[in-house]
């Protein structure tokens, strides 16, 4: 529809509010309390504009643009004198108590309050009285609190409580003593607390880990990145200075994480700076272990030429690195570095998504679901951002019903919340044990994996009678199935979520069958399966055998050199099996970024790049290939991407030293040819030689301070800027100044918009896709081999065995993560390893809460763990903390013995 802004006519989308319309049109209008993901509440009064009845109305009426819907032919003025004066006045009010401590404030230079103050033109302070002051709180190791800076926009509590479902941050007191914090000092409980630092328009809530090694935003070198800490693949911005990774920021992707990250993702970056990093190539057999690159090459040449070479891939290494290893050792000698149990499940998931029977769902689409069924996966702890998306689905379903009921727009947040009250959309969580997400569930049921699967199959059978051949479902189970099935049937966009963490293929099959059974002509069910690592899907799609097969082969054939890629196999495989493998190998070459149990076994250790010092591509659990870019320039150390090392080894092996394929682009091209399932992978991002008018895209903002004296002890001459040549990004502040293609946006900035709010300027419309489309490439789209797939494998009910317990992993939203656990702050929030069992199981063991238990599997003894009694764990099951720094590979999903 048409509207008139300051006597110019514009086309805008119906249903939006005036503020969204203005921002979408790229017009500058200041605001605080409105947030694109949270809607309007009209509290700050900053976005005032004049609205006129018609062209003859000269007086107009001041309105808050965030609270008014666009109407056909509407006339408004941003530039009107009164409106401008009022907006300036609002800033003056907000600033009456603000401490004006920008020079010592972490937010300074990236502060929405600064930007808006400048935008309104307020520059002279007339308030002559004392400012009110507050006492700050200790909010834990992740978030810093400085209440004096607060301008009371209420965004923090609206985000923390309403959006993320937290309940330990609130607003206290009234009038101009309003206080945002906790009831008393203490660690923020929500695993999404880090977003407060981006939601807060000023410096009240800031990133405490950044404070440890603080740098102004304008002095950061930044690059588009992808989170490494779970399979969801949230988009991030990695930010560096002086060779150190300083912080991670959210990178908006309208299809994936939107405006937010979980705390594991935001704060889990410090392993990059860890003292445990491998910076030096080593040859362990020598007196002087440290080796130069040429020594390494000379030494390795014999190892990889003489004997058979097997490659052990990694679910946390990039596609490029895994593929380079596959090229080096040959397809027949390349193995996934995970257990057969996990590889089996991952293969199954690939088969399901490739079949095209169900739609592989994005996070954004999950947010829009009107019914969600979760079978077998504790997504709160294994894929936190997916849990946040499910929360939005549940809340938004109620909101959209409310909005239709009395015809108020969905963005009118407070009115919608009043109307919807406690109403929630349908969510059923069928999991092994309780999870915080159960709080918003319509139905929650906790049982052993086989029983969860049985309920899943019963639901599928209820939805499409006759498809499942099984008659022994109990009445109680059928009743549950009917309740859930009826709710799913009513939905237009149902989503079924499952995951591999039950280590039970029946669970995944049951979830898939429900999704297929829900498919009707007009309804295409969406399906998602959470996996364990950031590139589990990419590795699984390569279709290679598991580590267990490699182990068998080596045991049988002997005499092999193993090349292990970025993989602590001790985290995936029970240590006895891993030891067995290493004992069978003649030589072990390991590429990794951090020292671990596997690197201890290496005769040759090569320092691999992390996501921050290298380029690569990851495939998330949805099948979305996403590119991450190097942000730490590497001028001195031997650290390089594993694919680069492996390509160099390959040239050695082939005796052609003029290897040409040393860009990720070339690798991906070769990969596309070799593995057709990755068709299109070369289009994930612009090529390395991409330029705009001959200019590269700068990783540094143009406000960068330039060179300082801090490295003068090393070199006083001006070094040539680092150039990795791998990407269209440059390591300087020079280059193209406009909006780059969406996949290579290194930071969000726009004139007058120095804070994260500048993301508005990069979107096609507020809250919409990035200009040019959201980055990433869905590899499961447009499949030609679509075929009917349906499983019928209803397992027997779970039977409690007298002296065997089903061993299952228990993940932790903050503590789990092989790499993120190197962030000291996250480590302190991580639980200590423990096992949990039902009281019944403990009685059977003659044990009590707090006892130390030892888990024994086929004669292999795992370390002792304290046991906690947990009523929500079903009898016959033992849950053991997984993914923690201390956690080692276990035979999950099998029955184990337990000794006191």
């Amino acid at each position: 529809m048409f509207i008139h802004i300051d006597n110019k006519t514009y086309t805008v989308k119906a249903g939006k509010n005036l503020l969204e319309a203005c921002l979408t049109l790229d017009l500058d209008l200041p605001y605080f309390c409105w947030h694109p993901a949270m809607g309007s509440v009209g509290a700050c009064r900053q976005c005032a504009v004049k609205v006129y009845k018609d062209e003859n109305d000269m007086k107009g009426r001041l309105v808050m643009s965030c609270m008014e819907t666009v109407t056909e032919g509407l006339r408004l003025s941003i530039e009107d004198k009164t409106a401008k004066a009022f907006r300036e006045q609002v800033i003056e009010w907000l600033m009456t108590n603000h401490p004006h401590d920008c020079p010592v404030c972490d937010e300074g230079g990236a502060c929405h309050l600064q930007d808006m103050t400048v935008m309104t033109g307020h520059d002279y302070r007339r308030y002559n009285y004392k400012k009110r002051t507050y006492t700050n709180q200790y909010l834990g190791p992740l978030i810093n609190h400085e209440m004096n800076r607060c301008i009371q926009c209420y965004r923090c509590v609206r985000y923390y409580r309403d959006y993320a479902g937290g309940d330990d941050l609130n607003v206290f007191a009234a009038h101009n003593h309003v206080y945002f914090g906790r009831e008393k000092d203490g660690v923020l409980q929500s695993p999404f607390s880090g977003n407060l630092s981006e939601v807060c328009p000023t410096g009240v809530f800031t990133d405490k880990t950044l404070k440890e090694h603080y740098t102004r935003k304008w002095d950061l070198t930044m690059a588009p990145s992808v989170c490494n800490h779970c399979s969801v693949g949230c988009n991030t911005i990695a930010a560096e200075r002086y060779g150190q990774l300083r912080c991670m920021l959210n990178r908006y992707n309208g299809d994936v994480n939107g405006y937010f990250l979980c705390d594991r993702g935001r704060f889990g970056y410090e392993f990059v700076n860890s003292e445990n990093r491998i910076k030096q190539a080593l040859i362990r057999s020598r007196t002087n272990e440290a080796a130069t690159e040429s020594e390494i090459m000379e030494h390795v040449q014999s190892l990889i030429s003489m004997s058979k070479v097997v490659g052990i891939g990694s679910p946390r290494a990039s596609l490029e690195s895994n593929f380079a290893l596959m090229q080096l050792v040959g397809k027949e000698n390349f193995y996934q570095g995970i257990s057969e149990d996990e590889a089996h499940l991952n293969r199954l998931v690939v088969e399901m998504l490739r079949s095209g029977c169900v739609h592989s769902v994005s996070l954004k689409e999950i947010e829009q679901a009107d019914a969600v069924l979760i079978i077998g996966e504790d997504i709160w702890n294994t894929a936190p951002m997916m849990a946040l998306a499910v929360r939005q689905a549940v809340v938004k379903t109620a909101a959209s019903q409310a909005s239709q009921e009395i015809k108020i727009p969905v963005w009118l947040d407070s009115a919608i919340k009043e109307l919807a009250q406690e109403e929630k959309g349908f969510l059923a969580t069928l999991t092994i044990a309780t999870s915080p997400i159960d709080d918003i569930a319509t139905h929650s049921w906790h049982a052993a994996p086989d029983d969860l699967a049985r309920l899943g199959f019963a639901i599928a059978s209820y939805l499409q009678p006759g498809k499942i051949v099984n008659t022994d479902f109990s009445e109680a189970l059928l009743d549950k199935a009917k309740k859930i099935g009826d709710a799913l049937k009513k939905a237009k966009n149902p989503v079924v979520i499952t995951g591999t963490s039950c280590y039970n293929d029946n669970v995944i099959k049951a979830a898939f069958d429900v999704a297929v059974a829900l498919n009707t002509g007009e309804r295409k069910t969406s399906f998602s399966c959470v996996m364990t690592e950031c590139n589990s899907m990419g590795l699984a799609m390569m279709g290679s055998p598991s580590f267990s097969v490699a182990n068998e082969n080596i045991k049988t054939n002997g005499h092999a050199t193993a090349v292990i890629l970025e993989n602590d196999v001790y985290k995936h495989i029970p240590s006895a099996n891993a030891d067995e493998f290493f004992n069978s190998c003649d030589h072990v070459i390991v590429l990794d970024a951090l020292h671990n149990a596997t690197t201890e076994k290496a005769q040759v250790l090569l320092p691999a790049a992390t996501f921050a010092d290298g380029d690569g591509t990851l495939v998330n659990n949805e099948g979305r290939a996403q590119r991450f870019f190097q942000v730490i320039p590497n001028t001195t150390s031997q650290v390089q991407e594993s694919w680069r090392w492996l390509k160099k080894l390959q040239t050695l092996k082939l005796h052609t030293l003029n290897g040409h394929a040393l860009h990720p682009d070339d690798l991906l091209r070769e990969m596309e040819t070799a593995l057709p399932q990755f068709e299109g992978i070369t289009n994930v991002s612009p090529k390395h030689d991409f330029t705009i008018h001959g200019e590269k895209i700068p990783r540094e903002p143009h406000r960068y301070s330039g060179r300082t004296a801090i490295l003068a002890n090393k070199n006083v001459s001006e070094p040539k800027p680092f150039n990795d040549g791998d990407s269209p990004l440059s390591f300087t502040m020079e280059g193209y100044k406009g909006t780059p293609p969406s996949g290579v946006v290194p930071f969000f900035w726009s004139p007058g918009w120095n804070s994260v709010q500048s993301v508005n300027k990069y979107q096609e419309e507020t809250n919409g896709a990035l200009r040019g489309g959201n980055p990433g490439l869905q590899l499961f789209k447009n499949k030609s081999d679509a075929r009917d797939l349906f499983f019928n494998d209803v397992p027997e009910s779970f039977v409690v065995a007298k002296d065997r317990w089903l061993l299952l992993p228990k993940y932790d939203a903050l503590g789990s993560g092989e790499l993120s656990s190197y962030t000291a702050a996250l480590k302190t929030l991580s639980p200590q390893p423990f096992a949990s069992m039902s009281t019944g199981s403990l009685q059977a063991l003659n044990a009590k809460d707090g006892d130390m238990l030892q888990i024994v599997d086929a004669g292999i003894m795992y370390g002792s763990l304290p046991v906690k009694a947990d009523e929500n764990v079903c009898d016959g099951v033992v849950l053991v903390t997984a993914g923690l720094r201390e956690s080692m590979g276990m035979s999950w999903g099998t029955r184990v013995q337990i000794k006191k």
Partner: protein
Amino acid sequence: MEQPLTKNIITGKTLSLKEYEQAGGYAALRKVLKNNAPQEVQQMVKDSGLKGRGGAGFSTGIKWSFVPMDEDARHPKYLICNADEMEPGTFKDRLLLEGNPHQLLEGMILAAYAIKADISYVFLRWAYRKAAEIMEKSISDAYAAGYLGKNILGTGWNLEMYLHTGVGRYICGEETALLNALEGKRATPRAKPPFPQVSGLYGKPTIVNNVETLCCLPHIINNGAAWFKSLSASEDSGTKLYGVSGKVKRPGVWELPLGTTMREIIEEYAGGMANGYRLKGVLPGGASTDFLTEQHLDIKMDYASVAAAGSRLGTGTMIIMDDATCPIGFVHNLQHFFAQESCGWCTPCREGLPWVEKILLGLEKGKGSTEDIELLQMHTQYLGPGNTYCALAPGAMEPLQSALKYFKDDFVEHIEKHKCPYEV
């Protein structure tokens, strides 16, 4: 002169259920439940011209008419009595609450019937401890007598009623903030639209009416719209409880025809100014109305006449400012109250009012400058209706803007003399 609302009230005493019934109480309810459909009650009240007595003066019948009445309207619907009487200088509802509680209950039940409500609440000011006791007993008596609960008077209609005492926040007088408080949330006002008639308490259709408004209902039903109109001395219908406080001979509250002149109320009923004092200004309807002065004494105290004189009838309870009281100190006191009672939700009110308060204190202490006057004027302009989230700050600006108009000399004198000229 008829005084339907107060005729049975004896100061210091509470009319019991029995006494109320003997005086003709609950007859209106019996009549209506037997003979009239809810919409007919709405029409009667619309015809009577009853306007809300809480301060805004909006037609009660029209207010009710926005409640969805069709079969698929969302239930439970709520009827809420706003008995949070927190407006400074206002004590009219207290008289009705303590003197004749069943008159209010009957009014509430009638109103609830008119909108087909299922649940009703009395939201009572925390400080009205005696009224709380009285209401609690009266509600339970009404339950016992079959006026509340299931199957009221054998008609099959159900209505539950609860007493809720607030914690003493002025903002709870704002009906949407009251709803939030009642839900156990922070007492911040809500965005309108949607209005409470559509999405009120717990998101369901809700009507909030003032005590005095509700007390009029039994009499309108019993005596008809024409009678109710005839009670008034103005275009508006009915009687009004007028109050006077300040340095008058007999401060108090009286039920008089709507449109009685200010002079009559102050001079005849309140006995005129106390000895040695002259009237300097009047806040005609509580602290959030514009000052009027001696020149306005002959205006009629009805909605339109007071508005024409540049103020609002508000609650109809006048605060008299005498000539020995410093207007700056007086207004400072009011602004202190308003600044403290701001809920803290929107910027202009939260940050503007404390600033105004500090400026006025500075002026009062002789530390003011002419720039302060400009700042005060700026605030009266920018804290106006529409600029803030609710009516609290615009209300707070009413006595200030009129003080700047009528008592400008006092402001100038404070600045020039660097002290308060009223100081003894």
